[in-house]
């Protein structure tokens, strides 16, 4: 009798599990079956009344029924859990396009940023970064750069004067003589900084930034200059950048050159940034005039050097497609926000 009864109980319970529609109903079935006075628990207790020879058979059956019920309860339970989880996940769904309030950062200014980039490249090539005063003597800005008083070369720059002998440096070249007096060759230096000229229009700001480079060693040539500037411009504007020399004049270099760089925008094809020429006039350079070395106490028979200087405002403008130089100094957040 018990055996048949157990099979029936099992079938009934399985049906009930099957039809349970909530975790609570399922729990009720669990208690009904496996609780302290549940059907299966009671059946186990009933083992006592069974003859010893029938016990193993009954015991096996009870275990089988228990396992089956437990399994069915677990399967059904997991199903309810999964459903509950799915429901929760669905309910918790948010609009992922809502703007975040966090991680709001500002931005570096393009000029100091380009100084960082350039000085990093130059330090890699063995240059040390130096600075010099912006309020400078006539001697360091001009005379030590082979530009005597009342010399025609002075016409090349409109200078802000403070007194007859003190001025706002018109070129970072003013640091050249200071460093040459301080250092013993061989050395390589670069100097970023502010420069000033009495000139203000759509393409000129009275305050602007330059980067000056100077190398003094025994066997320096124009070919070193070419290699160095090629590497610098490639690292700044990309591997496919090339440079070209053109003759020019600076009192402190001889020979003097202008360096044209292939337009990083059109790669030499011609566009409105390079005005169709494919090249941009970006820097002045040359072999250091031996007179300049001598004036600063360096033996020009033994040492040679090269120097280069370029406008950082223009560089920052090209790198960031900035069209008006004045926007670099307005500090308008709407402008700076684009520099992120």
């Amino acid at each position: 009798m018990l055996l048949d009864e157990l099979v029936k109980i099992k079938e009934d319970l399985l049906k009930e599990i099957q039809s349970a529609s909530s975790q609570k109903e399922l729990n009720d079935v669990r208690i009904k079956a496996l609780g302290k006075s549940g059907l299966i628990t009671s059946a186990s207790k009933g083992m006592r009344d069974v003859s010893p020879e029938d016990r193993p058979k009954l015991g096996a059956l009870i275990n089988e029924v228990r396992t089956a019920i437990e399994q069915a309860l677990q399967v059904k339970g997991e199903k309810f859990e999964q459903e509950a989880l799915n429901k929760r996940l669905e309910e918790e769904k948010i609009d992922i396009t809502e703007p975040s309030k966090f991680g709001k950062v500002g931005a570096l200014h393009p000029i100091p940023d380009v100084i960082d980039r350039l000085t990093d490249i130059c330090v890699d090539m063995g240059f040390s970064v130096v600075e010099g005063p912006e309020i400078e003597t006539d001697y360091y800005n001009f005379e030590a750069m082979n530009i005597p008083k009342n010399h025609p070369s002075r016409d090349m720059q409109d200078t802000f004067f403070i007194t007859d002998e003190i001025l706002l440096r018109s070129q970072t070249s003013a640091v050249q003589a200071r460093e040459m007096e301080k250092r013993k060759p061989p050395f390589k230096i670069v100097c970023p900084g502010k420069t000033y000229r009495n000139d203000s229009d759509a393409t000129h700001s009275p305050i602007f930034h330059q980067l000056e480079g100077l190398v003094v060693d025994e066997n320096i040539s124009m070919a070193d200059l070419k290699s160095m500037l090629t590497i610098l411009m490639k690292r700044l504007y990309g591997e496919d950048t090339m440079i070209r020399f053109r003759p020019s004049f600076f009192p402190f270099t001889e020979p003097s050159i202008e360096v044209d760089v292939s337009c990083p925008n059109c790669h030499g094809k011609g566009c409105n940034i390079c005005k169709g020429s494919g090249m941009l006039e970006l820097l002045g350079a040359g072999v250091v005039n031996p007179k300049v070395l001598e004036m600063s106490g360096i033996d020009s028979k033994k040492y040679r050097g090269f120097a280069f200087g370029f406008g950082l405002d223009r560089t920052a403008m090209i790198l960031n497609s900035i069209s008006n130089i004045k926007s670099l100094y307005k500090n308008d957040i709407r402008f700076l926000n684009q520099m992120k």
Partner: protein
Amino acid sequence: MKVTYNWLKDFVNITASPEDMAKRLTSAGMEVEEIIYQNEHLHDVVVGRILKIEKHPQADKLVVCQVDIGKEITQIITAATNVFEGAVVPVSLPGADLVNGVKIQKAKMRGIESCGMFCSGEELGIDENYFEGAGVNGILILPSDMKVGQPIDKALQLDDVIFDINITPNRADCMSVIGIAREVCALYGLYMRKVNLSYDIDVYAKDTVRDYVNVKVTTPNCFRYMAAAVTDVKIERSPLWMRARLNAVGIKPINTLVDITNYVLIEMGQPLHAFDQELIGGSQINVRQAKSGEKIEVLNHNTYDLDEDIMVIADSEKPMVIAGVIGGTNSCINDNTKKCVLESAVFDLKSIRITSRRIGVRTDSSARYSKGVNVANAEMGMLRALHLISRIKCGKIVRGMIDIASQKNEARKIVVSVKLINDILGLQIASKDMLTILNNLGIESTIAGDKITCIVPPYREDLENDYDIAEEVIRLYGYDAYDNVDYELFKNSAVTEGLHHPRLLMERQFRNALVTNGFYENVSYTLVPSDMADKLLLTDERKNLIRIANPISEDISCMRTSMAHSMFTNIAYNLSVGNHNLRIFECGRVYLTDTLPLEKLPTEKDMIALAVCEETFKTVKNMNFNFIKGMVEMILNKTSVDYKLVRSKQPYLHPGISADIIADGKLIGSFGQIHPVVAKNYDIPDYVVYAEIDDDYLASLPVKKIEAKEISKYPIVERDLAIVVDEKITAAEMLDTVKSSCGKLFYDANIFDIYRSQSVGENKKSIAFKIKLSDMNKTLTDEEVNKVVQKIVKTFSYKYGASLR
């Protein structure tokens, strides 16, 4: 500097196109900035003769003209009233594109076809000075003997090509047609034609130049003075070819003598001056420094006061010319001039530069003198002028010439090394190529072994050594030699260590940290208006603004002495354009001096400055101060600085809500809320907070060294403690007390609440600390912890009379 293609052809037989020439000149350092085709707007314009004029049947104001244009007779309708049958006129035909933008095509005018238009002088781009009749209001009536059918650009000599060339300051010798011609010769390997310097003299005349003028030079600033005399002067319109040349380079033709002086100026680069001989007092020319008190009215109709720094050409009584710069009205060539004295001189460029700057006058003459005119050039210029007078027959040249020279300039010899030139250039240029280049440049050169001996002509004062010659070689050899140079960087040089600038590197950390905290980096003008010090209420040396002697404008006339001005100005600007919630910073310099005017270079101090203007900070008291303080601590914590805070003395900060940062007994920075008066001065809100720190000081410190402490494996015990003290006791003092009372068990302590109320008491505050204790070797017992807490309370009560709340 403008020169023309035809003018150059006088001296060199160019066959290359103007474009090619411009390219070659540019590649050799004579940058051609523009090529201007004079006849760009003169195509399809020809000389025509009006054969017949009839009234237009449909229009009163129009006439119908039959016009002979050489190859055919064409019909043109005009409203012009100064035309007549037989008149020779410029005719623009269909296809013409005139300088004023008018494009000509066949058109019917009131039913009758018109195949072109007659032109006025203006429509051809010329004026009365250039061609007689070109200035009239109407059609330009051409001379009746002009050949009909020829293109107008040929007929009016408007067919030249003009080059606008940027001459570098070292090449004053190229500020002339002849100078450019020499370059062209060198570039194309051509020979220079000899300049015609011959002129006629009446061999029977007895008078000599001394009968007309005497010259005395008493100033060292005149290196050479030449004078010649011309009689029977004809002051009239100079010939068309001369006017054409002058017009092409932008000089207004005036009359024979004036045009000749200008012609020589452009052609030879030699400024000349022509005097009316009868207006030279005592027939005496004195080249001297002016005396103070002397005055002169010059050709620009201004009168200038002269002094000893200014050189003049004077007669026996009065200054006649400001030497090398501008002529006076008292002695210049005029319509009645019969006899003329011609001057060709060389002056010290420094003297001319000083004078030109002093009186603020720049002329074609001063422009050349201030770049330097070669002593040998005066003679070339004088002879060329006499040749031109003779050629156009505008005067009789008197025998003899006065020539007073204190300087000579002769060819110099320099010896250079082929190896050194190649070492400088980093190229391998053959010595024979160098020789060819130098000889083409007019530098007679010979070679012996490694040495080249160069005979440098007088006009090449810029050439002195191997480096100069290296430049001559490479600029003509062509810099494209470097296009294919693939050279190992610094292959013959020493390895040098590249070092970052310590301050810039440190600032980079600050800048990146600030950007992460929502700050925007600024770069401001270091030049500021002179009211900066007043707006910031400055009282110390920062009141001493260094002023520019020649500022562009008052707004940017002084060097800033405080970053606060830039920061507040930038806040104000951003607010004015509608930007809100501003966090800005700048790394920049201030320029400080204790004495004015400057006798030595001032101190330039590198600072980092921050300013914050956020509306949300209005809502919670002290939040603005707390925020800026947090930012300052963030910066300082990146360095090894040991600092303390005291109440700030900065006049532009709110005295109660600001702090000065003191390290090594020095002020190294300040921060806090803006002073309300300063806020008003800059028109910005009074809750703006500002900070500045001396970056030079921070960069001078040793780099921060981090020493990590081991963390105890036993638990940390926390105790909260609220203590009531007087308002005047600062938080920093109390934290110090807590720390020292905890002894070696101290792990951390912070203030988590400050509470003020009536129940706490007037002028009192309740400060709540969270104190953390720890021991490396054991778990702390309650007993041990309580002992520490009691000690803290005892110390507070003893030191400040404080009580536990």
